[in-house]
């Protein structure tokens, strides 16, 4: 029969909106519709699962859709759960469309039990059982009560091997992650059975046997059975071991691209050895990597064993280089402040060139070595539609690489100190290291400005400029020892001579004027008497450094060495030279723990006419960044005050510092790239090779037994305002007049 309706009305709606009904009730008004369309329409409305019943009534040309809404869930009450928290269970239910306020669709009840049971079976609780009831709370709303009996975890009671004549059950069981539940532990995840884990274990067992040459090894069958009370699981693995095979001969085939003997070198197996799958995998990997360097990133090598019945095997290495691959585009993402060029100039892989896996990987290390990034990831997706081109995408996450320090302090002798400074290793993302510090107090005004551009030319020639000015006025301060005014400038250049080593030249000039306070120190007085109180010097220096650290900041692997020398050339008031050697060496234990060795040596002395190093160029030791546990710059020879004041540290011309640190992870800290905790042992001191003739408490010569040692805990945190260093340390062999500090911290000091 044919009908024409010019109006549509819905009755029985309580909470579902009319538009929702119209959108799933496809009946066009004022058009011919037959009874079949009506049936179809009401079926599709019924399938929404929102209604218990859909009836159509006709009143003249008005079509009335009478619906009976299914109840909506007011609350879901879950009881009896302990091992899985209620929120987790509710989340699981929400995923299968079951949460408060939703309409309870017909199929969901059984879905509830299924979903919760799957969650418990996932935890190995096979004996869990779930019952659901509906409790009406009036006005077509219901509560869903879920009763859970969690039962216990089914643990593995026994793993039995049959057919293992060569190796006994214990050796084989060690290869498994699944383990028999040790009776002393109440719960060990290893003893919780799951089929994927078993498959993984069987694979490990196969590899272990293949690693020992049992090429014919095979797992015939496995039986897994569970006890009636569903608490104990028994696993039986039936194997045939076969015989260990030795290598008869290794042959190469396919397109080798590089010289055959170069490949033969990479092969770890030689005729006569017992076959070892691990060695074979290492060999194919080494060859694949070597071909990667030639641009064949998608080369693959498989070794085809050919078994002979005298328990020997001929291995044929089939080399398939695939097509030479090119890099289409290199993209960077995550560099919110760092300029694209700063990254692009650092990497050695070129766009539109052959893709070299080696270059791509060591470019990642070079980016990490910049110290601007928390982490660097690289992936090389294929270009769609083109089989020999890839893109290289580097994803970085930036970390604060500088420090903003502003300080207002007060100290008795220099009054209120205003200080402000910025030290940005990646200034505005330009890759240039810019530092600008100014501080003013009653006694000292200090200003220094430094700029260092590592890529003055694209080949890596770096250039640094440093200007400093310091002026102190002493009228109204009772500075005991001495004070200096100084200003100067220094320019430095450097360029790479190998992949990781650089060489450099520094040129500088500075002027120092010395003041003596009201109770000056003998050494200063004699120095001024001999040499005068105003010295300017022209310095020429050079350095050679090799940086193989794995990360710019907070490294955990690799080594860093720097040897530098500087000479105040003749024509300067004081002629002297300084020689310094700096070494860092890391031995990673695993990806969380690492041992860091540190050595800093310095030797400076006058030459030519004045054989004494000016005291304002002395080395100091002690404090953070040097020998922790001793107060800053307090170690080494002491000055001889004119009155009977207590002597203060005067420094020395030989610096010896060393230390060993164990870097360990704080278990609750995930992001270890910006926070590092260490247990350390520091040692060091400064010595005078030749004391000033008037000094009384200065022992000449380097006496290593005088090295001061301390041990303790250190923490470095790369905060947004700059690196914060804390250390708690115990001085081990402080002498009577050393002043030690148990707790030391510093803000914004980059070392």
């Amino acid at each position: 029969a044919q009908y024409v309706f010019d109006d549509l009305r819905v009755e029985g709606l309580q909470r579902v909106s009319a538009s929702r009904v119209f959108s799933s009730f496809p009946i066009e008004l004022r058009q011919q519709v037959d009874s079949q369309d009506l049936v179809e329409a009401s079926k599709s409305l019924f399938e929404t699962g929102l209604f218990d019943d859909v009836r159509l009534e006709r009143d003249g040309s008005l079509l009335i859709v009478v619906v009976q809404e299914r109840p909506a869930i007011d609350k879901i009450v879950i009881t009896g759960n302990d091992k899985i928290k209620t929120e987790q269970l509710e989340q699981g239910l929400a995923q299968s469309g079951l949460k408060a306020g939703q309409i309870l669709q017909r199929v969901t009840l059984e879905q509830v039990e299924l979903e919760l049971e799957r969650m418990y079976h996932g935890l190995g609780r096979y004996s869990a059982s779930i019952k659901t009831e509906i409790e009406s709370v009036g006005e077509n709303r219901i509560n869903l009560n879920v009763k859970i009996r969690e039962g216990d975890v089914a643990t593995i009671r026994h793993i039995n091997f049959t057919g293992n004549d060569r190796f006994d059950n214990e050796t084989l069981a060690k290869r498994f992650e699944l383990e028999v539940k040790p009776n002393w532990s109440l719960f060990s995840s290893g003893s919780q059975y799951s089929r994927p884990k078993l498959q993984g274990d069987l694979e490990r067992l196969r590899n272990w046997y293949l690693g020992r040459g049992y090429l014919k090894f095979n797992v015939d069958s496995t039986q897994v059975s569970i006890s009636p009370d569903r608490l104990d699981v028994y696993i039986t693995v039936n194997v045939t071991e076969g015989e260990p095979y030795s290598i008869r001969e290794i042959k190469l085939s396919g397109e080798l691209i590089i010289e055959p003997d170069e490949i033969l070198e990479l092969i770890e197996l030689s005729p006569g050895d017992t076959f070892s799958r691990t060695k074979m995998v290492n060999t194919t990997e080494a060859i694949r990597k070597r071909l990667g360097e030639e641009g064949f990133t998608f080369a693959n090598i498989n070794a085809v064993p050919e078994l002979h019945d005298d328990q020997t095997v001929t291995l044929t290495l089939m080399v398939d280089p695939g097509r030479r691959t090119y890099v289409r585009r290199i993209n960077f993402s995550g560099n919110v402040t760092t300029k694209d060029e700063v990254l692009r100039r650092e990497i050695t892989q070129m766009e539109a060139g052959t893709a070299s896996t080696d270059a791509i990987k060591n470019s990642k290390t070079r980016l990490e070595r910049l110290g601007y990034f928390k982490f660097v990831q690289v992936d090389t997706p294929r270009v769609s539609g083109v089989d020999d081109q890839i893109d290289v995408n580097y994803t970085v996450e930036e970390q604060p690489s500088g420090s903003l320090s502003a300080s207002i302090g007060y100290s008795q002798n220099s009054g209120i100190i205003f200080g402000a400074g910025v030290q940005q290793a990646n200034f505005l993302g330009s890759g240039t290291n810019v530092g600008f510090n100014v501080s003013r107090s009653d006694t000292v005004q200090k200003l220094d400005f430094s700029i260092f551009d590592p890529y003055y030319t694209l080949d890596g020639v770096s250039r640094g400029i440093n200007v400093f000015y310091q002026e102190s006025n002493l009228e109204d301060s009772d500075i005991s020892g001495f004070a200096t005014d100084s200003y100067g400038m220094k320019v430095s250049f450097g360029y790479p001579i190998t992949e990781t080593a650089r060489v450099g030249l520094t040129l500088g000039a500075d002027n120092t004027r010395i003041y003596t306070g009201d109770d000056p120190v003998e050494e200063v007085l004699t120095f001024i008497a001999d040499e005068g109180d105003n010295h300017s010097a022209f310095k020429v220096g050079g350095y050679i450094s090799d940086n193989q650290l794995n990360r710019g900041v907070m490294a955990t692997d690799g080594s860093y060495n720097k040897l530098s020398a500087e000479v105040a050339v003749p024509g300067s008031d004081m002629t002297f030279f300084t020689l310094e050697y700096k070494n860092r060496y890391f031995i990673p234990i695993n990806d969380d723990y690492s041992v860091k060795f540190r050595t800093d040596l310095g030797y400076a002395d006058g030459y030519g006419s004045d054989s004494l190093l000016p005291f304002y160029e002395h080395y100091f030791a002690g404090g953070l960044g040097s020998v922790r546990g001793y107060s800053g710059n307090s170690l080494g020879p002491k000055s001889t005050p004119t009155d009977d004041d207590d002597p203060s540290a005067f420094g020395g011309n030989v610096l010896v510092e060393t230390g060993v640190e164990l870097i360990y992870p704080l278990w609750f800290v995930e992001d270890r790239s910006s926070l590092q905790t260490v247990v350390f042992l520091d040692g060091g001191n400064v010595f005078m090779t030749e004391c000033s003739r008037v000094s009384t408490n200065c022992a000449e010569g380097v006496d290593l037994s005088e090295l001061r040692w301390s041990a303790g805990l250190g923490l470095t945190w790369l905060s947004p305002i700059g690196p914060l260093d804390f250390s708690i340390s115990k001085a081990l062999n402080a002498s009577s007049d050393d002043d030690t500090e148990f707790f030391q911290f510093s803000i914004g000091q980059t070392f």
Partner: protein
Amino acid sequence: CIFPGVYKRELQQGQVMTDEMINQLQPGLTREQVVYVMGNPLTPSTINPNRWDYIYWSKDPRDNVTQQKVSLVFDNNRLVEINKTP
């Protein structure tokens, strides 16, 4: 002078073309056949869509350059002209 030279890496650009690949090129090949032999061109000319330039250019640490260019001209998908420089 006593300073060691600035360390430079070997720089490599464009596509490696062996003689054996080039000898397989002869007029009449379709673009797909050329791609099979030479690989996809890294820099097909945009100005003149019928011309594919295969360029190889590399500079060793002492700045001496080796270079090779093969440009192929097509006429409605058929290779008509091959010119190879050095």
